[in-house]
C-alpha cells in the first residue's frame, strides 16, 4: 500500500517542472504543453485524495479539469494560429505588438 504523500510528491515534481517550462521557454506551443503538465499534476492529486477518502467526488473534479484543459488547448492553439498569420513568429518574447 503506497501512502498518499508519495502521490503528492509526484504531483509536486510534475507541477514544478511545468511551472519552470511556462516561465523559461520562449516557444508558445511548448508553454501550452507545460500548462497541460500542470493540469495533469492537479489531476493526480485529486484522484489520490479520492482514493484515500474512498469518495468519488475527487474523480468528478478531475473530469472537469480535463474538460477545461481541452477548452483551453483549443482556444490557445486557435490564438496561436491567428497570431502566426499576422506575424510569423512563435516566440513569446517577440510577441510585443502591444508594447509601448
Amino acid at each position, binding site marked *: *500500500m503506497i*501512502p498518499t504523500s508519495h*502521490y503528492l510528491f509526484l504531483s509536486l515534481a510534475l507541477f514544478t517542472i511545468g511551472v519552470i517550462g511556462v516561465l523559461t521557454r520562449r516557444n508558445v*506551443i511548448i508553454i501550452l504543453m507545460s500548462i497541460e503538465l500542470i493540469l495533469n499534476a492537479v489531476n493526480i492529486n485529486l484522484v489520490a485524495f479520492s482514493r484515500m477518502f474512498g469518495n468519488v467526488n475527487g474523480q468528478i473534479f478531475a473530469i472537469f479539469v480535463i474538460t477545461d484543459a481541452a477548452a483551453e488547448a483549443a482556444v490557445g492553439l486557435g490564438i496561436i494560429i491567428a497570431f502566426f498569420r499576422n506575424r510569423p513568429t512563435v516566440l513569446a518574447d517577440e510577441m510585443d505588438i502591444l508594447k509601448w
Partner: protein
Amino acid sequence: MIDRFLFYFFASLAVVSAFLVVTRRNAVHSAIFLITALLATAGIFLQLHAEFLFIVQIILYVGGIMVLFVFVIMLVNLDVAAHQPQFNRQTWVASLTALIVSGQFVAAFYLSRKAGSGRALFGLPQAQATRLDPNTELIGLTLFKNYMLPFEIASILLLVAMIGAVVMAKRRV
C-alpha cells in the same frame, strides 16, 4: 508488491518525460514526450483504481488534445524558431523561484506530519479499493445527481471554446 512496482515505474516515467518536454529543442519531440507523460499519468490513474479516468485520459488527452497540438505544430512553421535560443533571459531566476516554491510545499508536508497528533493526514493509508468499485457507475451517478449543473456549465464552456477556436482560426472574420 506489483502495486508498488507499477507506481514507481509510472511515476519515474512521468517525471523523466515531463523533464524532457521542457528541455527539448524540437517542438515535435516535446509533443511526443508529453504523450509519454500523459500515458504514464493514465497508468497512475489505473493503479489508483480510477478506471474511467484512465480511459478518459487516453481518449481525450492522448487522442484529442495531442492530435490538436501536433496539427498546430504542422501548420505553424517552426524551422526558424528551432535555430534560435530556446530559453529566455529570466531562466535562472524563474527556475530558482519555482524550486523555492516547491521547497515550501515539501516543508508544508513535513510540518503537517509533525504537527498532527499521531499520524498526519498525508501519512494515512488509502481506503479499500472496493469502496470505489463499480467505478464508471459511481461516477455516472454522482455526475448526473449531485453535479448536474456543473456538468451543463461544462458543456456550455465546450461549446463556447469550439466557437471561439473556429472563429479565431478562420481566415477572414
